[in-house]
């Protein structure tokens, strides 16, 4: 049996469940953290929603573009909060200096990462579900009305958020909490390039080339096509998915390399300091 096949068979849902349970204990032990999951997405959505309302009342074009701002905000939050949900669960281990305990346990890195991915969805759901209901109540924007398109948007955005989360976690593992800031800021690099609130055509030509290298660009462009042109661009979703596979595999390989380097560097025992 090949070592790779061995590793796949050794994958234990029970160990993944134990880690998810651990993060759930943490989450429910602090109501400010729970509140924070809802607070920022709600503030963002309300601000952009009211701005959109104002523009709709004053410009003919934007009347047709109804929902693109609120939609952009909600989809952006899936991307941003998905990565943050992944990274914060990881950082909890660094903050509590628990990494050595995990790394000497039978928990495989792939199980650890799987638990972090599950928790990113749990945290996202806690924040996004109430906010998406607020969007319906305040602005009549029903995210769930996007139907299957929403599933495609969500799958692509969450894949990107996991890729970035995995990469950043590897960097923090290797370099310690000095690199923690990356977890909070790196996704904002995507914001102007992924064209969350404006079409890709707005960017200068050379930046458009870079923008099309990022999977979220396809999602936000697809959202505008759906909300303005009433067309679901499956071609854009497939291109985003292909890029996401490349992103995900690259980030997993980088994480593996950084973990190997961390073991060589000998910093796992002091992880967190």
């Amino acid at each position, binding site marked *: 049996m090949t070592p790779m096949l061995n590793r796949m068979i*050794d994958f*234990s849902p*029970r*160990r993944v*469940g*134990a*880690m998810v*349970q*651990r993060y759930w*204990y*943490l989450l429910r*032990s*602090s109501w400010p953290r729970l509140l924070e999951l809802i607070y920022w997405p709600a503030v963002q959505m309300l601000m952009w929603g009211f701005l959109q309302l104002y523009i709709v009342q004053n410009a003919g074009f934007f009347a047709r573009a109804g929902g693109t701002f609120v939609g952009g905000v909600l989809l952006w939050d899936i991307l941003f909060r998905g990565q943050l949900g992944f990274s914060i669960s990881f950082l*909890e*281990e660094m903050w*509590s*200096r*628990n990494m*050595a*305990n*995990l*790394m*000497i*346990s*039978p*928990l*495989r890195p792939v199980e650890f990462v799987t638990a972090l991915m599950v928790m990113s969805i749990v945290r996202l759901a806690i924040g996004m579900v109430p906010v998406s209901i607020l969007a319906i109540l305040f602005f009549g924007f029903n995210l769930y009305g996007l139907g299957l398109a929403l599933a495609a948007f969500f799958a692509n955005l969450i894949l990107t958020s996991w890729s970035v989360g995995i990469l950043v976690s590897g960097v923090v593992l290797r370099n310690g909490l000095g690199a923690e800031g990356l977890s909070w800021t790196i996704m904002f690099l995507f914001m102007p390039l992924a064209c969350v609130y404006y079409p890709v055509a707005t960017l200068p030509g050379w930046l458009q080339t870079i923008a099309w290298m990022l999977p979220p660009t396809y999602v936000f462009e697809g959202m505008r096509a759906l909300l303005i042109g009433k067309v679901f661009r499956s071609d854009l979703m497939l291109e985003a998915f292909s890029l996401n596979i490349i992103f995900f595999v690259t980030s997993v390989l980088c994480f593996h390399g950084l973990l*190997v380097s961390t*073991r*060589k*560097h*000998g910093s*796992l*025992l002091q992880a967190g300091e």
Partner: protein
Amino acid sequence: MSVCEEPAVRVDGLSKVYGTAKAVDGISFALRRGSLTGLLGGNGAGKTTTIAMILGLVTPSGGTVTVLGAQMPRQRYRVLHRVNFESPYVDMPMRLTVRQNLTVFAKLYGVEDVGARLARVAEEFDLTDLFDRPTGRLSAGQKTRVSLAKALLNHPDLLLLDEPTASLDPDTADWVRGRLERYCEQSGASVLLASHNMAEVERLCDRVIIMKRGRIEDDDAPARLLARYGRETLEQVFLDVARGRVETTAR
């Protein structure tokens, strides 16, 4: 050599270099199954790095480590469920209660009946009253008891301890030593204990490895070390080694 005769740990020519600094410099030893071995040495002697390499936390620069028949770190997942580690320098999540922390680790280690096992360790480590308190609100002694309970949750065949009684009051430290002694007697597990507490090592260990600047300076039973150095306590032996008085005493 049969599986039973195979040492719990075999270290052969093990070294670790960080940049230009040699943390561990080509050490070799084997730990007999069921033995309780003390690893002594001053700060920076290489004890923690050695333990970390045995656990697979640190990749050696040279040499090999075999744990319960598995090459570390390559085959670590073959044996990690039979190994555990305790150190006051590695924490458990502070906001989780003792029960929550131990539940998670029991599941990670594949403990079968988690509820029954937790009830047992609560009794053994006198944790019943602390079970639903956040780990971060415990005293140093209580935290050590919880860490030790975590380290014994999976009935390890190999237990590595890094200064388990550091910063504990004499009463709690004595309680910890007693608990360790009982576990070893009952389970037949092998223990490697890094410590600065000479009395502790003298009481618990049937063998002592003394490290200095990444190398093994001496390796023998406590009684034989005392006899060879002509000293009354292990602390005096340790000071002889640490201050380079080996030539005039042991040799």
